[in-house]
């Protein structure tokens, strides 16, 4: 809401010296969010005066006709002689009053006016248009002032309102009343403790003034008050006065015609949206009712709309003429010949208007106000103010008859403990504070229980005040939030982070310590990303959730894997010249739940949910396990003066997974696997030990060349992805090991196996065979070549043996080694190498 300060001052008796910025600060303190203060005309300086055109000499021979004018500017030019001014506009005649910027004036945009030679003549100033003075947008020519506006030579600043300040206020949804000069003036007056004059205080017609336009309301639930007032004999050519144009322009409303401008002006002033019909085009009695299915209406914006039974309509005998509170119909629109005008002021149900506005994607100044709640009692005053303006400015005759349908129920008082505001704020307000402050905002306050309880009836313009806390807020904000003390909360001893929360931090630190950089990518995917991963049609990762309103139509899906986001970030870094990249991400993926209901249930809000109700909601919410993923390309270790670098490989991806498992205290078991998007020969399935055997937690390895191509990645890019939640569950609390101080015995074995036998199995067999004397086993060489048979490979292991309680004998160590080799032989066909 843009509020001119001059307009505000008409109704709030603010101290003369208060600047717009001070006013803004005060309004912010009471809860009106003033976003900007526009100081209009602050950049206009120097002599800008009223002038009268005495004579016009038409100059020809130029590209366009030019006028050389003699303009009486009174004594403003010092000499009293007429001023000679060149003007390109043609919308004025000799004798007209105009606005003249004399030499020395500076107009908006730093436009300095001087005496200068142009079109062969000396031009001593400029005759101004509204646009040049930033009054309003007008490209029709210069401003022609009405006769009697002011004497030539009069300074034009004051009468034209060249300088004014406009407060731009972001109105929160609870404060519909602040979408009006009236509402803001009331707040300003309360903030300064000065008198407020209500612009709705107009002389109302007698309560029994019947004989208005026939109308009925079908349902009090859609419209609680309906007022019609009419005028006849309106002059459709009557211009909108300059002051009204100026004020409308400052609030951001374009001037259309006097009749329309008056409805907008009253809306801005009182917050009550009005509608004006050409009465000659309305046929028969008006009814306010819900739409019937299939009804249609062509609205003012020339769109033919199909109406919904939830829309509130204004209808006449011909059918719908307005979508109530949202937009009028084209057929009954005020036109250039309209002389009889019917003004509507109504109180429509907020929720209905909100839905209609959304349904028809029509957000108007009117619907914005109805949605946020307009004063439920101001309609008669608003309609009356409008017809009086039409009478005053448009020569109309106001109908005596008035239509006033009042279906509103009286508002019930809210019981408020006198101490409630003090208890909410933690401030010991003196008794009587609440009643005083509430009366200031327009509430009626009665005392009960000897003053311990207040019975508060909020004013008609505050539909938002319904609960004790709403009323407490009014008291606390007017008493000043700055007066609330700062008292540290005293929480009971907390338990710190959960193990899962600690794990996430440990995983982040572990991977960062291993050289990976964390990214936080958007969780939005497109089908293209899933195709790029080479996922088969049946792949579970293709079962995604879809957004109804994605930001980007190419990415409507919610991720089921972290890889696309990581791979795109990787490609972006490579594209920016960073070829050696290792990235990781931890985050949720979203998995539709099997058997989930079509729609999550809506529960009651007037009580807590039952266990069953909660379970029903949870059953509709997708599974959202936390994953961790990592990708890497280029050199894992860069080349340098020390020698060549080491390229990142599938093994680094598995190692990243081990890093995660290590942080969780879980042991990772690696097995060969095939899964998209990995290279079929370079993909590992990763398992952790669970209570019921090994649990698959993810995959790692080198990416499939087709995936590499699809995402534009460097060759041999490697990746891993784990379900972090599963890894976390496998973590075991570390038990202190027995640290033996007896000497170690080291034995190496070289085993020859088929090339296809995984080293992991050989190692597992060695461990099992060696028994508890084995301290560690380490593969230190893998050999294929001349010294082993074709299709076989040699694996060399270092075995370390140690006992907790003694020095091992050579016989013991030999036996353990032999047992290890035997187990490997039995399970993997390993043969001890020569």
């Amino acid at each position, binding site marked *: 809401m843009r509020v001119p300060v001059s307009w505000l001052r008409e109704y709030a008796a603010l101290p003369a010296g208060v600047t717009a910025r001070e006013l803004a600060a005060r309004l*912010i303190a*009471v809860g009106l969010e003033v976003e900007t203060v526009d100081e209009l005309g602050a950049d206009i300086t120097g002599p800008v005066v009223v002038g009268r055109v005495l004579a016009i000499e038409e100059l020809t021979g130029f590209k366009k006709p030019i006028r050389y004018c003699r303009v009486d500017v009174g004594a403003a030019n010092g000499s009293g002689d007429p001023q000679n001014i060149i003007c390109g506009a043609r919308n004025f005649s000799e004798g007209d009053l105009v606005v003249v910027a004399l030499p020395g004036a500076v107009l908006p945009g730093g436009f300095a006016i001087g005496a200068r030679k142009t079109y062969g003549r000396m031009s001593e100033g400029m005759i101004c248009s509204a646009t040049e003075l930033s009054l309003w947008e007008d490209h029709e020519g210069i401003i022609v002032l009405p006769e009697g506006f002011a004497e030539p030579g009069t300074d034009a600043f004051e009468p034209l309102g060249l300088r004014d300040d406009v407060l731009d206020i972001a109105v929160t*949804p609870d*404060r519909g009343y602040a979408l009006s000069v009236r509402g803001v003036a009331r707040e300003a007056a309360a903030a300064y403790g000065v008198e407020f004059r209500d612009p709705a205080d107009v002389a109302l017609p007698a309560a029994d003034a019947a004989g208005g336009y026939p109308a009925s309301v079908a349902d009090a639930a859609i419209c609680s008050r309906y007022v019609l007032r009419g005028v006849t004999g309106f002059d459709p050519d009557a211009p909108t006065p300059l002051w009204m144009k100026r004020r409308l322009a400052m609030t951001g409303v374009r001037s259309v015609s006097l009749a329309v401008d008056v409805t907008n002006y009253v809306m801005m002033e009182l917050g009550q949206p009005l509608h004006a019909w050409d009465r000659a085009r309305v046929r028969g009695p008006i009814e306010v009712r819900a739409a019937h299915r299939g009804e249609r209406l062509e609205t003012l914006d020339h769109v033919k709309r199909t109406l919904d039974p939830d829309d509130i309509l204004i209808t006449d005998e011909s059918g719908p003429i307005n979508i109530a509170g949202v937009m009028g119909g084209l057929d009954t629109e005020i036109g250039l010949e309209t002389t009889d005008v019917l003004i509507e002021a109504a109180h429509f149900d907020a*929720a*209905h208007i*909100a839905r209609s506005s959304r349904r028809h994607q029509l957000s108007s100044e009117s619907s914005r106000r109805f*949605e946020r709640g307009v004063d439920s009692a101001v309609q008669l005053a608003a309609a009356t103010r409008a017809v009086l303006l039409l009478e005053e400015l448009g020569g109309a005759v106001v109908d005596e008859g008035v239509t006033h349908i009042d279906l509103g129920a009286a508002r019930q008082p809210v019981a408020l403990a006198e101490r409630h505001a003090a208890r909410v704020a*933690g*401030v010991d307000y003196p008794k009587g504070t609440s009643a005083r402050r509430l009366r200031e905002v327009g509430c009626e306050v009665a005392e009960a229980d000897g003053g311990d309880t207040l019975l508060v009836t909020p004013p008609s313009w505050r539909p938002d005040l319904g*609960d004790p*806390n709403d009323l*407490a*807020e009014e008291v*606390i*904000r007017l008493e000043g*939030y700055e007066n*609330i*003390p*700062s*008292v540290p*909360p*005293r*929480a*009971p001893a*907390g338990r710190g*982070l959960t193990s899962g929360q600690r794990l996430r931090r440990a995983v982040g630190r572990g991977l*960062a310590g*291993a*050289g990976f*950089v*964390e*990214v*936080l990518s*958007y*969780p939005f995917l497109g089908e293209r990303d899933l195709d790029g991963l080479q996922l088969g049609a049946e792949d579970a990762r293709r079962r995604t959730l*879809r*957004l*109804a309103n994605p*930001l980007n139509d190419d990415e409507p899906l919610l991720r089921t894997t972290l890889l696309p986001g990581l791979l795109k970030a990787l490609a*972006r870094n490579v594209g920016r010249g*960073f070829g050696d990249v290792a990235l990781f991400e931890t985050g949720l993926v979203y998995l539709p739940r099997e058997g*989930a209901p*079509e*729609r*999550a*249930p*809506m*529960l009651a*809000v*007037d*009580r*807590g*949910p039952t266990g069953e109700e*909660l379970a029903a909601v949870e059953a*509709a*919410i*997708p599974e*959202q396990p936390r994953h961790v993923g990592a990708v890497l390309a280029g050199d894992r270790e*860069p080349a340098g003066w020390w020698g060549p670098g080491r390229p990142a490989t599938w093994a680094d991806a598995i190692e990243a997974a081990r890093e995660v498992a290590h942080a969780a205290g879980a042991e990772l078991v690696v097995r060969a696997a095939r899964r998209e998007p990995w290279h079929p020969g370079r993909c590992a399935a990763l398992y952790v030990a669970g209570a019921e055997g090994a649990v698959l937690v993810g995959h790692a390895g080198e990416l499939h060349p087709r995936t590499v191509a699809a995402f534009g990645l460097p060759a041999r890019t490697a990746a891993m992805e784990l379900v972090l939640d599963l890894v976390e569950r496998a973590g075991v609390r570390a038990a202190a090991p027995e640290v033996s101080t007896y000497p170690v015995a080291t034995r190496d074995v070289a085993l020859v196996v088929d090339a296809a036998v995984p080293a992991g199995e050989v190692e597992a067999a060695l461990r099992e065979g060696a028994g508890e004397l084995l301290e560690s086993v380490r593969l230190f060489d893998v050999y294929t070549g001349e010294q082993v048979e074709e299709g076989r490979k040699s694996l060399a292991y270092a075995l370390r043996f140690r006992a907790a309680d003694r020095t091992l004998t050579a016989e013991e160590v030999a036996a353990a080694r032999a047992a290890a080799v035997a187990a490997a032989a039995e399970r993997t066909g390993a043969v001890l190498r020569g």
Partner: protein
Amino acid sequence: MSAPNNSFDPVEVTALHPDEVARMREEALAAIAAAGDLARLKEVRLAHAGDRSPLALANREIGALPPAARSEAGKRVGGARRDVSEALKRRQAELEEERDARVLVEEAVDVTLPWDRRHRGARHPLTTVAERMADIFVGMGFEVAEGPEVEAEWFNFDALNFLPDHPARTMQDTFFVESAAGGDSGLVLRTHTSPVQVRALLGRELPVYVVAPGRTFRTDELDATHSPVFHQLEGMVVDEGITMAHLRGAIDAFVSGMFGSGLRTRFRPSYFPFTEPSAEVDMECFVCRGASVGDPDAPCRTCGSEGWIEIGGCGVMNPRVLVAAGVDPERYSGWAFGLGVERTLMFAHGVRDMHDMVEGDVRFTSAFGMEI
């Protein structure tokens, strides 16, 4: 006593003669001093202190002397051998020191050579800032609560007193999730971390003191100051006798923990459906502390010369939310706040553009290292 030993050999006697012993000692000491390196010293040691050295041989003869002469001869030879041994030890140390000095100089390297053989990783600053923000409250005894990102509308809106057709609900620019059949699923991407308030109340014993950091979503296009995916830190307390003053205390503790002590905070009345009364929270600009206000010569980039920085919204929990979460509003009261993690990072570390936080450029993230 017996008669003088007539059987001793004059030669042997000569070897033990004081002059002879002195000569052997001098000879040995001269050789030691003359040894120019450790190898030479080793030879000298063998020649003058070894088993076949003159002094060692002389020592063997002592037994042949008459008992009366043995003691003196023993002292004489022993003294000489000790002198030689000590001289050897000293010379050994000298020569080793000389050798070490020489070798270590020869082994000197250029320690300014780079050894960047390992790429350094980093955690995302939004992660670490959110952790720090949460830790300030964990330090006060709060626990960290969590909730899903795809959330039921009931949790995201209804339970938080966003009525179905209220403008506050449509103002949230919500991402809606389609049902399996392409219809209305009743699910949204949570527009704020506030649903965790209700979840925490439903899932925990009272009183509840929690913070909930997390990802939130709104249909804003990415630009310098907006992102459709962003992060908030929710805070909530529900206990008996809780007031707005405690809310202020918690916010003040956060500001001093995050930005430094002595910074003022300011509450501005505002509106959120789930709090009543509600406020926007500003803190004094920690860079200029208000000095830039009205001073065009010293503008402040951090606060735009406003003197204040908006850090979030807060308020006293609307009793309707307590009711929807099954908490008795007659007995309990509470408050909640929501702080922007991106904003905190932008202010605390001078990040100017939201793009930097979402693109995953390693240059940006690496600058922040492991902790913030």
